[in-house]
């Protein structure tokens, strides 16, 4: 029975028929790895006792361990499935995501990581609210956080839904509902935290799997990546001649393409990706799991190294999928190219490798989704419910009830949005989440650490304006307004809102802060600096 490998030129129809016939080996490998991952989560969750354990692993994780965990959190569905797919589709354009997702890390290390650990306790809102008026700042931060999380969730849902569809050949609608249910079960059953150990193990598996795939790809090209790239370029010219590749004249997959046809698109995307990393709530949260600022610094350093290595591998994997699997086969399975990496695994290592890679990707998605849902649920229950509805006093049990309903809300919302965004590439989707994070969270976080005159009003205005502008512009940008809502022309021309929303968020923060002084904030700024500098040298 011909399943994988799918060779170049395999007829689209054959591919479609084979979809439901991925053999038992791949499925068995898939289930074994998923079971292992759930087992580890269960074990780790059993070791969680206190609140501090729950949110921050008791502040007891070492720098190296946290570096792996950060990498595990960051190398989610988007990095692996999305980027490999984008590169397989359009070559160099996809690599813009590889570079963009990485260059935010040095900024996190230089500007944010140590300060976070020096000032805050559990979340980045602790840092922003440290010298400001708690309630309005926490509300604004919670709203921004939820916008980022929902957008990020969509990408994970689509990635997981497509994986299930590929493996089991069922309809996308059913796969996404199954994913939604599994996700809720995962969050409720012990997997209450995407624990550090789970992420560490997954980071190792994902890096190992990607490295193995890259080596196997290169072995077919005399271990010379340039031979692979040259073959990709040659094939695309060939495809263009046959009328298969998208536009004419022939596409040069080794250079910039349609994604950045407008230079401002390139700049807007670049800005969002670079700044966004430093505003992702679930990534920032990880810096509280280490005992001190020095370990926070170490962990950001190791994470950068691991992620850099991984993104260099995506060059090989993406072009490898383009050449060895072929665009026609990939597009037949998923028009958004999200399945390029698992299909490449099938070509390279048969069903065992396909099952393994699919399981690692799926388990990573589950863990990321659990973490995201939880940070969203805690933003809703802790920051919004307790601070706004109950004015700071709500019994523990009531908070938990709200958190459960919030989890349910996120689960249902994720399924709904996952259905709406089926045709979207997940790396692109995560890029949008980065744009929201960069506009909503980063300006307020940065200014609260480095600017004495920053005020409560400035922080709130910045977070509200950043969130609303970024989300609003996403809705009216070509990829949503035209591709999903089926209007004729987009109101906002760029595919990423960052170029407008990030500067706007900064400007609003500065102007509003300058308009009216806040003496308490300025007085407490000395303490902020003192804590950061003490944290940098001691321990």
């Amino acid at each position, binding site marked *: 029975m011909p399943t994988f490998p799918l060779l170049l030129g395999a007829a689209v129809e054959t591919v479609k028929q084979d979809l439901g016939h991925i053999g038992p080996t791949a499925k068995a490998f898939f289930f074994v790895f998923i079971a292992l991952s759930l087992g580890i989560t269960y074990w780790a969750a059993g070791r969680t006792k206190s609140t501090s354990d729950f949110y921050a692993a008791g502040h007891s994780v070492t720098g190296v361990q946290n570096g792996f965990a950060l990498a595990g959190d960051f190398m989610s569905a988007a990095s692996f499935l999305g980027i490999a797919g984008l590169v397989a589709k359009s070559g160099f354009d996809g690599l813009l995501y590889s570079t963009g997702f990485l260059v935010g890390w040095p900024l996190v290390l230089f500007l944010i990581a140590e300060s976070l650990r020096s000032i805050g306790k559990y979340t980045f809102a602790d840092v922003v609210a440290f010298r400001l008026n708690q309630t309005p700042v926490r509300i604004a931060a919670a709203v921004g956080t939820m916008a980022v999380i929902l957008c990020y969730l969509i990408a994970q849902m689509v990635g997981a839904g497509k994986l299930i569809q590929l493996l089991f050949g069922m309809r996308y609608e059913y796969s996404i509902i199954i994913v939604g249910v599994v996700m809720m079960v995962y969050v409720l059953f012990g997997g209450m935290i995407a624990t550090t150990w789970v992420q560490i193990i997954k980071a190792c598996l994902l890096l190992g799997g990607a490295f193995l795939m890259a080596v196997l790809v290169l072995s077919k090209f005399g271990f010379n990546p340039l031979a692979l790239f040259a073959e990709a370029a040659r094939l695309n010219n060939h495809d263009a001649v046959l009328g298969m590749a998208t536009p004419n004249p022939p596409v040069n997959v080794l250079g*910039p393409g349609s994604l950045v046809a407008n230079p401002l*698109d390139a700049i807007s995307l670049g800005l969002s990706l670079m700044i966004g990393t430093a505003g992702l709530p679930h990534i920032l949260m990880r810096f509280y799991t280490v005992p001190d600022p020095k370990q926070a610094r170490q962990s950001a350093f190791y994470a950068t190294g691991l992620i850099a290595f991984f993104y260099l591998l995506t060059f090989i994997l993406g072009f490898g999928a383009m050449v060895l699997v072929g665009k026609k086969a990939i597009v037949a399975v998923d028009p958004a190219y999200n399945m390029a990496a698992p299909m490449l695994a099938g070509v390279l290592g048969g069903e065992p490798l396909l099952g393994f890679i699919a399981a690692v990707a799926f388990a990573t998605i589950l863990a990321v989704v659990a973490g995201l849902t939880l940070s969203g649920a805690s933003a809703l229950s802790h920051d919004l419910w307790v601070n706004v509805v109950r004015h700071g006093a709500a019994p523990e049990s009531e908070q938990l009830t709200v958190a459960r309903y919030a989890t349910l809300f996120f689960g249902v919302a994720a399924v709904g949005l996952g259905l709406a965004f089926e045709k979207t590439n997940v790396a692109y989707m995560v890029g949008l989440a980065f744009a929201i994070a960069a506009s909503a969270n980063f300006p307020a976080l940065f200014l609260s650490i480095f600017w004495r005159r920053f005020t409560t009003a400035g922080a709130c205005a910045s977070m509200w304006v950043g969130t609303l502008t970024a989300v609003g512009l996403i809705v009216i940008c070509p990829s949503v307004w035209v591709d999903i809502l089926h209007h004729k022309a987009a109101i906002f021309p760029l595919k990423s809102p960052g170029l407008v929303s990030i500067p706007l968020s900064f400007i609003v923060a500065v102007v509003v802060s300058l308009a009216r002084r806040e003496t308490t904030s300025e007085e407490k700024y000395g303490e902020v600096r003192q804590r950061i500098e003490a944290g940098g040298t001691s321990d």
Partner: protein
Amino acid sequence: MALPPSAPDSVPVGRRRPALPFVLSGIMLIIYFGFIILVGYRQPLMGQQIVPGLSWGILLGALVIVAAWVLTLVYVRSFNRKGGA
């Protein structure tokens, strides 16, 4: 928190410390936006192959990733040299 040992040189170090993160962040911004602006405004050049298979775009993209990592290495090393951490 071992504050006393670092207290004597906390003034000069404290004065110099804010510089390093900002200098390195500045370098990172210049490198990355240099790359992005080339991608936006010099598209034919970025697609040109230096040797078969290696375009300027791919070479510079890979170098941006390597440079980002090297900058983090410089940062972490500078702390270790000072003996502050």
